[in-house]
């Protein structure tokens, strides 16, 4: 490639980077702004460094508690999905029966049902189980996930048949084969499922809002929404400050897991 060609690519990449970083910078800049300056352009892009919004936002809610709730719910939901999806996908791929096709279609069908249409039935189940205002209400309904089963199935199907044959000859049990052969070979797919489910759980809003009462069991998204007084207006500076410090744990997680996230996304073709 010529030098000028490289230069053009770098310029394009720099512009794309700028486009991606700009909104994040704007949130950060707004969080360090007085309300009046935040509503002026380009004033809000160059913050005058007031930390008052962080102080005010921090006092507006039990953020550590919200964060712990979100992380806990997200991690446990992810673990459950990894277990249920791995077992379901294994059964469908390696233990076929006449019902396999029907079960697969039923699992796929769960992905087509809009969440809004199952809110009431789910709510009634939660109520009858006595799980109202609990962590279980926010975890168990999402402990199995059709998309995750589908994704793991695709990966399991790509494993060489010779591995299965060798395991059969050695007299390996199904659980041992899943545990010692399939899952170690499925690390990228498991990483993808984990990220997908964790983000799904992290971003959940309506369901936690419906099944919880008060901040004790509520996740971060519900806490953030309470800062948005959409009946009359929004204090953008305080909201930006809250958004900035609540996004921090996810950014740290991303920094540490960046390599496997990028790998898993590039392998599966999923776009975030």
């Amino acid at each position, binding site marked *: 490639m010529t030098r000028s060609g490289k230069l053009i690519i770098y310029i394009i990449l720099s512009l794309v980077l700028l486009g991606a970083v700009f909104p994040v910078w704007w949130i950060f800049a707004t969080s360090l702004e007085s309300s009046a300056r935040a509503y002026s352009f380009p004033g809000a892009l160059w913050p005058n460094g007031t930390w008052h919004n962080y102080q005010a936002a921090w006092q507006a809610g039990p953020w550590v508690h919200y964060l712990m709730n979100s992380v806990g719910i997200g991690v446990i939901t992810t673990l459950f999905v990894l277990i249920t999806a791995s077992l379901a996908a294994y059964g469908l791929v390696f233990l076929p029966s006449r019902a396999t096709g029907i079960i697969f279609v039923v699992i796929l069908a769960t992905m087509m049902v809009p969440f809004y249409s199952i809110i*009431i039935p789910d709510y009634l189940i939660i109520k009858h189980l006595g799980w109202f205002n*609990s962590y279980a209400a926010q975890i168990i309904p999402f402990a199995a996930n059709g998309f995750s089963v589908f994704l793991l199935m695709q990966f399991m199907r790509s494993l060489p048949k010779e591995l299965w044959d060798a395991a059969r000859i050695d007299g390996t049990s199904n659980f041992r084969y899943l545990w010692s052969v399939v899952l170690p070979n499925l690390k990228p797919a498991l990483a993808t499922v984990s990220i997908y489910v964790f983000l799904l759980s992290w971003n959940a809003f309506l369901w936690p*809002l419906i099944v919880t009462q008060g901040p004790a069991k509520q996740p971060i998204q519900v806490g953030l929404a309470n800062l948005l*007084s959409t009946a009359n207006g929004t204090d953008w500076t305080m909201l930006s400050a809250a958004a900035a410090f609540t996004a921090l744990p996810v950014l740290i997680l991303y920094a540490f897991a960046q390599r496997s996230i990028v790998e898993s996304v590039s392998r599966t073709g999923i776009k975030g």
Partner: protein
Amino acid sequence: MNSTTKLMSVALSASMMALVLSSAALAAPRPEAAPHKVTITFWNEMTGPYEVALNRVMAAFGKTHPNIHIQDVVVPNDAALEPKLLASLVGGNPPTISQMNPNWAAGFVKTKSLVNLTPFIHSRAGFSLKPFYTHLLNAGQFNGGQYAMPFNVSAAIMYYNAAQFRQAGIKSPPTTWAAFAADAKKLSTHGRHAFAITLVHTYPFRAFVAQGGGSFVKPNLQPNPSVFRPIGAAAKALTLWSNMVKNGSAILTQGYGSQTDFANGSSSILEGTSAFYPYLAQAVGKKFPIGVAPLPGNVNHDTASFGGYLGIFSKSTPAQKQAAETFIKFLTSREGQTIWMQDSHGYLPIRGDVQTVPSAKRYLATHAAQRVALSVLGRAPMSPRASWWAQFSSQDLTNDIIAVLDKKMTPVQAMRNAYHQAQQAYASS
């Protein structure tokens, strides 16, 4: 055991442990409340500065009613509160009290989910309805009973950028539609659109329709055909708006973009309720003086009020109902409403006698938005209490208005369409 196997074992054990712990926590007995202490749950949308104000009112109530514990559950907005309420009603565990729009209350009354407050109001422990604004009470009345009491109410007024008005040579805010359109034209220079229209709610349009002498709903709660006619008030108001958009003196904004436009000076006129004021004052700061005036008039100078009502759900225990009635009595009392108006800096008292309280008089003298809004509250109808209105106004009517402002329909076509949709909504309600 290799590292992957170890990791998976830990993951499996952790998840199983979590399941066991969560089940154990659920099975654990919960302590009973002391028999003399009653806990009532109160779902409301009072977030941000209004949450702080409501907490102060509740603290004042708590001082005189130590045996009533209020579990305050804050929900961000209508879009979140409505499904939460509906799910809880279907599940049979609604809150004791909730904030609600009058048209939601209509649906709750139909399903016998709300307590009729009239027997309590007329009882010895009750209170007089005489000091209340009649039209606000009416919106909470169904089948001859008072099922919902107004609480957080505000009225649509006009905020204007006094500095830009002065620069454009406009000495006083417009009082007629003609002056409003002419002033907006003068103010729309340098790529600025003077009037930023918001359609987050339909009360801004309802206010203009009221000025044109119309109302969308007849007293019998059916759609009012006269307002939708080609020469009706809705088409007239929509023609005014669309002409202003066409000549560049108005612009349709998304969400609360109208507030942003006003605060950063790219629009000069903002139609909003007095409850906007705390947000607006913060956003504008000292950039320019905020002027406040009643909305311009046409056939009359009516406007629209907007706000939340309080209702008690019939699933509550007798002790909870009694406690909730006492709480509502306090919130709507002269004392409760005075604290609410002064601490919220945005909402209006729902009863006329608050204005005779000396501290309220002093307060209103220095708070223009609430003073102006209070001066028009008597001629500011509340959103219709018809159950069909909610979906019709937030979807069909809003889409029809947007279609006109986007130049895809004429005002007459849009209102003909809207009437058809209103009839369908009424028939299916």
